[in-house]
């Protein structure tokens, strides 16, 4: 009796000691999925300093970690990896689910996303937010500490006495049994989820957008050079390549399938100017076009019949089953051209020909089209899925494919066990067409790895530490942003654009609204233009600071991280002051901005521009004057200008090869032509050149910001064209028409005229563009996202083959990759 009491006293003291120790020694795994991880990383830096709680010892290996912070979207392709990492952690272990995506799928109720990580692993603490602020994560940690202290009784388990509790003891949730499918929570069954009612026409009748009148889409005047090219095309290809009469953005030809390759080859090599770069290659599923079978009644009823007619092909109203779209870019004259080619699902004249022999970069683009639409390309060397896992069924961007995860079978623990990523050797065999030898040493670097900057999987065949060949497997971060674009209304899509590159925030909204505004011919007030530039440059600074930190971290320097994040917080403070957001500003609106600049913005920005150059110099000297840093970057990961152009590389990576190609200069938008700045270039094309270019870009950004602040125009922040914009509240309260516009645009969303347009801006990583196709409805018919990363990362094997593992890491670091704009 007495002994029992003593034993239990001992155990309860032991409980307390062990719990106290564990509480202050929660080592998190170095593991991030998407946006939230950036905030998680910020939590470790100076302002938030997670180290105070003893939790800064980030362990890259699950074996030494106590805490798994699931920070970001759990994709169906990565879920097996998350599960494995969790299971590889030794007992006891805890899980914090950080952010809406990990909690419930959040805003990504879409085919590729698991609707909550608690369906595959147990969760202790949920941290809400999209993304949660660092303070929120700190609170999550404190809650977990309290949970450990107050509810766990580990000593019986530790001493093998039977009983006791430690670590996560909650069950994995099961859809239907312990978890509701409805993202709004239980109790809403029977009420449709908002947004489902705005399916594109054809699938849904009686859309009220038709009742709204809009002028036809913008129509550009072709320049003389364009006309000359059109004439030459006519001469050369006759009737096989037809000029689109009505284009909103660029010279557009419709080409017969058989001649596409000839036309492209001509445009790349012979035409004047030469269109050297394959900007984009994608497709549109035309099967759900509303006027596909010409509905005369509808045409007459609809007042913009003219626009519809000019846009629809020669046989009015006749759309093919699919359209394959090629977009080319000329560096000489800074111009683009679009080639479209129809395709019938049944019969027809065979498959479209692969253009991989003209542009090597077409390889991935064609694979993507195959993956998303099921269109096969004749002569493609390795046509298989790229974004979706191999076991996936169906082609998600087809119109008859369900968009929502909640419309599909739930993703379960069983799936996560069964659906394993492809074996490294299989991938290599498929990519190289030669079966690798038995003795080949394959190393998976990623998808969970400290230095892949996200869910990128590199499969390296090693000889010692030298990389003999490198294969990339992407798609672990496929958030189905293009499918979402077809579902969300034009305005609702803006928050998704931020998340297409979570380090560049507004820059991406900028690209998107530019595309829509080009299509609908909306004119933006000068003040809004200047604020857009301001935000874009602030985000460029913030992005490059993160890049600098991670690049330095990749080559082994741990401290720059903390320094640059201090200035980054300063920038985020300004952004927060102006927009209310940190990572995702969601501040731009079609037609302008969400609000005017707040009081005190000028002082905050001036404060930044005053100290930033000096600080930058200080941080930069830490690296630039360090012989080890130079040895790790100079001459490493070279790519020639010719290769870079061929592969569609853009942004600082291209400029580091010696071409001063910057959309802000070459195809100015939003008033960039009024600012005095330079486009830094380097010629070496190696990691160090990429470093120099980005650092100089930061200085130039500061210059632009100074000019914006100095010359900030006064006036409206949103266009008066309320057909397309959400009216200012002040005016909305004045007259009934504006109120109606506000009501309609906020609830149903505005209507964008039938047509298509491409809009791109120079985001920190290069050219990020949106190709929006409208069928005259409240949401896009097709939303194509052209991310710079997709093209840039394709060159990684070229740069890294023959180098060592350490070099691969510094190359990835120098390229500034981010997964959401690769996998989208």
């Amino acid at each position: 009796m007495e002994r029992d009491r003593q034993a239990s006293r001992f155990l309860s003291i032991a409980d307390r000691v062990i719990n106290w120790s564990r509480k202050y020694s929660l080592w998190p795994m170095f593991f991030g999925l998407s946006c939230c991880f950036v905030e998680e990383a910020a939590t470790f830096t100076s302002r938030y300093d997670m180290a105070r709680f003893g939790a800064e010892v980030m362990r890259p290996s699950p074996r030494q970690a106590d805490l798994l912070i699931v920070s970001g979207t759990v994709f169906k392709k990565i879920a097996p990896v998350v599960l494995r990492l969790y299971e590889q952690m030794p007992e006891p272990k805890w899980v914090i689910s950080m952010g809406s995506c990990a909690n419930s799928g959040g805003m990504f109720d879409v085919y590729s996303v698991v609707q909550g990580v608690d369906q595959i692993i147990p969760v202790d603490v949920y941290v809400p937010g999209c993304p949660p602020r660092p303070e929120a994560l700190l609170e999550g940690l404190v809650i977990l500490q309290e949970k450990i202290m107050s509810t766990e009784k580990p000593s019986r388990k530790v001493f093998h006495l039977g009983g006791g509790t430690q670590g996560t003891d909650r069950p994995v949730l099961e859809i239907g049994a312990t978890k509701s499918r409805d993202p709004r929570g239980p109790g809403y069954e029977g009420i449709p989820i908002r947004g489902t009612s705005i399916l594109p026409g054809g699938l849904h009748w009686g859309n009220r957008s038709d009742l709204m009148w809009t002028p036809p889409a913008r129509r550009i005047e072709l320049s003389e050079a364009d006309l000359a090219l059109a004439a030459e095309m006519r001469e050369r290809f006759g009737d096989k390549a037809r000029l689109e009469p009505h284009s909103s953005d660029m010279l557009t030809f419709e080409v017969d399938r058989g001649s596409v390759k000839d036309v492209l080859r001509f445009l790349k090599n012979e035409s004047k100017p030469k269109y050297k770069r394959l900007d984009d290659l994608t497709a549109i599923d035309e099967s759900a076009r509303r006027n596909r079978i010409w509905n005369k009644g509808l045409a007459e009823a609809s007042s913009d019949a003219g626009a519809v007619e000019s846009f629809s092909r020669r046989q009015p109203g006749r759309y093919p089953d699919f359209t394959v779209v090629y977009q080319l870019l000329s560096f000489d004259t800074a111009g683009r051209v679009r080639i479209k080619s129809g395709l019938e699902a049944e019969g027809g004249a065979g498959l479209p020909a692969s253009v991989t022999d003209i542009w090597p970069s077409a390889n991935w683009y064609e694979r993507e089209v195959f993956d998303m639409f099921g269109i096969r390309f004749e002569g493609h060397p390795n046509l298989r899925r790229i974004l979706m896992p191999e076991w996936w069924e169906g082609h998600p961007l087809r119109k008859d494919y369900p968009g929502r995860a909640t419309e599909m079978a739930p993703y379960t623990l069983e799936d996560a066990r069964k659906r394993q990523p492809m074996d490294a050797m299989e991938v290599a065999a498929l990519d190289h067409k030669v079966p690798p030898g038995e003795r080949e040493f394959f190393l998976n670097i990623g998808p969970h790895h400290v230095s892949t900057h996200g869910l990128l999987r590199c499969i390296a065949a090693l000889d010692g530490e030298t990389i003999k060949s490198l294969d990339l497997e992407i798609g672990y971060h496929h958030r189905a942003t293009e499918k979402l674009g077809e579902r969300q209304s034009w305005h609702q899509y803006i928050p998704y654009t931020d998340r297409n590159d979570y380090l560049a925030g507004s820059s991406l909204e900028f690209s998107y609204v530019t595309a829509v505004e080009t299509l609908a011919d909306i004119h933006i007030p000068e003040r809004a233009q200047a604020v857009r530039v301001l935000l874009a440059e602030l985000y460029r600074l913030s992005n490059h600071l993160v890049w600098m930190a991670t690049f330095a971290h990749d080559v082994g320097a741990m401290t720059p991280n903390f320094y640059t994040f201090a200035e980054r917080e300063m920038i985020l403070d300004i952004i927060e002051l102006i927009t209310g957001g940190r990572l995702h500003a969601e501040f731009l609106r079609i037609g302008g901005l969400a609000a005017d600049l707040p009081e005190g913005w000028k002082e905050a920005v001036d404060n930044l521009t005053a100290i930033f150059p000096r600080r930058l110099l200080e941080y930069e000297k830490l690296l630039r004057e360090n012989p080890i840093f130079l040895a790790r970057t100079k001459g490493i990961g070279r790519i020639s200008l010719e290769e870079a152009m061929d592969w569609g590389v853009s942004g600082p990576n291209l400029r580091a090869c010696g071409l001063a190609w910057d959309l802000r200069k070459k195809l100015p938008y939003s008033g960039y032509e009024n600012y005095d700045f330079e486009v830094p270039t380097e010629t070496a094309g190696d990691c160090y050149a990429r470093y120099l270019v980005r650092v100089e870009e930061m200085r130039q950004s500061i210059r632009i910001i100074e000019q914006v602040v100095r010359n900030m125009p006064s006036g409206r922040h949103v266009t008066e064209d309320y057909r397309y914009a959400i009216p200012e509240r002040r005016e909305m309260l004045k007259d009934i028409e504006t109120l109606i516009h506000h009501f309609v645009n906020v609830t149903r969303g505005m209507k964008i005229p039938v047509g298509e347009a491409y809009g791109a801006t120079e985001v920190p990583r290069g050219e990020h563009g949106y190709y929006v196709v409208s069928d005259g409805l409240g949401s896009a018919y097709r939303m194509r996202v052209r991310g710079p990363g997709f093209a840039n990362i394709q060159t990684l094997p070229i740069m890294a083959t023959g180098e060592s593992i350490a070099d691969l890491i510094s190359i990835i670091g120098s390229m500034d990759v981010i997964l959401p704009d690769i996998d989208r």
Partner: protein
Amino acid sequence: MQPVAAGVMSPFHAGVFSLVVFTILVMLFIASQLFLAAWLGEKKKSPEKSRPYECGIIPTGSARFRYPVPFYLVAIFFLIFDVEGAFIITWAVVYRKVGLPGYEQMSFFIVLLLAGLFYIWKQGGLDWRETGKRADS
């Protein structure tokens, strides 16, 4: 019995005996740690937990692979130089005693050693980046 204050077993002499006792202490400490590590803590085996970690992917092939030759080449250089280093070190203790003649002989030896080092250097024996395609870094 030997006088206790002297000899190999003397506890007052900082000799091998003391080292042996220290080693035993250290080993006891480490053994206790290893024992605690193995004994304490809940054990929960699962197939995934005992699978080697490779970035969350099921590893391909074996993790025991043959390392390419350059590594062994350098290891052999190391062995040779280490043995020769032993000569230098023995000379160093008696360097005053052997005086100038000793120094002359040893400097000849060291110069020879340096020459050998430069020779393998020139022959590329010290280049580990044998397949680097951009080897100019």
